[in-house]
C-alpha cells in the first residue's frame, strides 16, 4: 500500500478521468513558475476535494518542481488534504473557547450517536460563536448543540445508509 500521502484518485469512479482532466486543465491556466506551487495545489484540491498522487505529479510537472519537493511542501500545510476525505464527516472545534463551552461533551455525544462520523479539529477562528461545528463542505455552524449537529448530519445524508 502506498504511503498515506501518495494515494491515487479513485480509479473505479465512473467520472475519475474526467475530473482529473478538469483539475489538470485548471492548473494549466496558471503560470509555469515555482511561485505558483501553492496556488496550483489549491486549484487542484478545489477541483478534486483533495490531492491524489496524479494531481501532485501534474502540479509538479506544471510548475517544474520535483514531485518529492511538491510532497515536502504540500504536507507542510494543514489545509491541503493528502488523504481522500470521507463525505458526510463532521468536525467539532476543540479550540480553547469551544472547549470551555462544552465542545468535548458535544463531540462525545455526536460520536456516540454516529460513531466514526465526527472528529475534533483545531481552532476554526469563530471563537465568539463557540462551540463550533464544521460540515464536510467546510461550512461553519456556531453555537451548536449535539442535537443540532445530529439533525444537520442526518438531514444531509437522508436516504443514504450510515
Amino acid at each position, binding site marked *: 500500500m502506498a504511503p498515506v500521502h501518495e494515494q491515487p484518485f479513485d480509479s473505479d469512479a465512473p467520472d475519475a478521468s474526467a475530473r482529473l482532466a478538469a483539475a489538470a486543465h485548471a492548473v494549466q491556466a496558471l503560470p509555469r513558475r515555482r511561485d505558483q506551487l501553492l496556488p496550483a495545489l489549491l486549484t487542484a484540491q478545489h477541483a478534486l476535494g483533495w490531492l491524489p498522487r496524479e494531481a501532485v505529479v501534474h502540479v509538479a510537472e506544471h510548475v517544474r518542481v520535483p514531485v518529492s519537493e511538491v510532497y515536502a511542501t504540500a504536507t507542510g500545510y494543514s*489545509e491541503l488534504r493528502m488523504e481522500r476525505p470521507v463525505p458526510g464527516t463532521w468536525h467539532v472545534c476543540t479550540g480553547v473557547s469551544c472547549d470551555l463551552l462544552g465542545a468535548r461533551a458535544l463531540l462525545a455525544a455526536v460520536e456516540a450517536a454516529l460513531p466514526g462520523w465526527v472528529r475534533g479539529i483545531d481552532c476554526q477562528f469563530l471563537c465568539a460563536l463557540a462551540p463550533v461545528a464544521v460540515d464536510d463542505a467546510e461550512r461553519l455552524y456556531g453555537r451548536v448543540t449535539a442535537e443540532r449537529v445530529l439533525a444537520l448530519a442526518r438531514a444531509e445524508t437522508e436516504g443514504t445508509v450510515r
Partner: protein
Amino acid sequence: MIGPAPTPALARLRAQIAGPHAVPEVRVLRHRGTCGDAVDASARSITVDVPVVDAACDGACWAAPAATVVRPGHRHRFARLDRGVAGALAACVRGECDEPQAGSGEHGLTARLGRNDGTLADVLAQGGYAAYALAATLPPARIIEVLRATGLSGRGGAHFPVATKWGLVAAHEAALAAPKILVVNAEEGEPGVFKDRHLLEGDPHRLIEGILIACRAAGVREVVVYINGQARHARTAFERALADARDAGIVDGSALGGESVAIEVRSGAGGYVCGEESVILNSIEGERPVPRYKPPFATDFGLSGRPTLINNVETLCAVTTIFDTPPPPTKLLPLSGDVPRPGLYEVPVDGAMTWAGVLAMAGASPARVQALLLGGPSGRFVLPEEFDRPLEMRALGAGGTVVLGASADIARITRDLAAYNARESCGECTPCREGTQRLVQLLDDPLANRDRIAALIEVMTEASLCALGGMAGRPVTSALASFPQAFEMPEGSAR
C-alpha cells in the same frame, strides 16, 4: 476624533461615485459575514419598508443574528433576531425609538466595521480614503514622520515600530533588478484571534487605503496580500473592494493622486507557523512553509531577495488613522470564552483602560473570572490581581483573549496548548521540533518535572528559529507559576 479634511481630488471622487449610488438616509444593515452566516438563518428575513442591505459582522459577534437600524443621528443594533425582536426593529425604523446603541467602535479602525454595505459609495460617505487622499499630496518622508510621531507599533503581535520598518524599506533605492514589495500578512492563524478576518470582511477598503499609504511612504509599487485559506468570506470581500477601488481609479493613482500600485491576492493553506513573516515569504515563493534565518531581514532581502515590507492587516488599517486629531491609541481585542458578549473590541490603550474595563464591556463580572488566556498557544495567563492595571500595548501581543471562568481546567488547557504547538511545529529547527514534543511528555507530571521543564523551555526560547518554538513554553511557565495547584490532582479522562 476628527479625520483629515477631504482633498479636492477626494471631493471630486465622492461626488462622482455618490451621484449614481446615493446611500439612503434610513436603512437596515443586516449583519451577515462569517458570524451571521454561522448562526440561525431563519432570522434573516426582515420585512420593513426601507432598504435592507447586507453588511458584515460589526464586531458584536455575540449579537448574531443581528441587524442595525440607521437613521439620521440614530444607530441602533438589534441583537439576536432569532429571539423575536422584529417588532421593536420595525418600530425603530418608523422612528418610534430614541435609544441609540452601537457597541464598540465609534471611531478608530472599527468605525465603519460592518456598518457599510460593501460599496465604495458607502465607504467614501463614511470617510474612506481621506487619509490616503491626504498622503498622496505629501512627500513620502513626511508620511513616515507623521507615522513616527504617532508611535504606531506592529499589531501582528511583535509591536515593532512601524515607522522604523517603513524607513528601512524606503531607504532602499528602487532597483530594477530587485524592486521593493509589500507583503500584507492576512494569514491570522493564531487560535483565538479573529480580528483581521473582521477587518477584511467588514471594511476591506480600509486595508486598501492602508496599503496605498504604505506603498507611497516606502516607495513600493507591488503588493501581495496573503490571506488565510479558511477566511473565504474575507478574501471575497477584499477582492470585491479591490475591484471597485481599481474601477474608481484609486489604485492606479488617477483618482486621488499617488502612484499606480499592482496588488495580487494569495491564499494560504493553514498552519500556525504560516503567520510568521519569513514563512509567508517561503510560501509565496513555493518553498516549504518553514521560517528563515535572520539576518538578513526581510526589509533588506525578503521575497525573492527583494527589499520587502511586511505588515499585518490591523497595522495597515491603523495606518489610516495617523492623520486623525488625535490618532486613536487603540488595539483590537478578539475576546471569547466564558463571557456573555464575546466579540471583537477596539479598546483604547491610553493608560486608562484596564482588563476590568474590558470585561465590563463584554458583560463579565471580574469576580467570576479565574484568569484570561492572552495570546493563545504562545501566550500567558492574566490573573485577577492584574485586572485593575492599565493595559500596555506591547504586552497585548496580537490581542487574542480567552476568558476562563471559575470551572476552567487550567491544567488541561495548558496541556492542550502544548500539544497544539507540537502538532504545528514545522520541524525545521531542533529546539522546537524536539522540544515541543518533549514538553508534552514532561507535562504528564509537571510538578515532578519542574526543573527539566524550566531547562527545556529556556533552550526552546533561546534557540528556536522562530516564535512558535520561542514562545511555546510561555503558557506552561505561566500556568506552573500561577496555578501549581491545578497540576496536583492526578489526571482523569482529559488526556
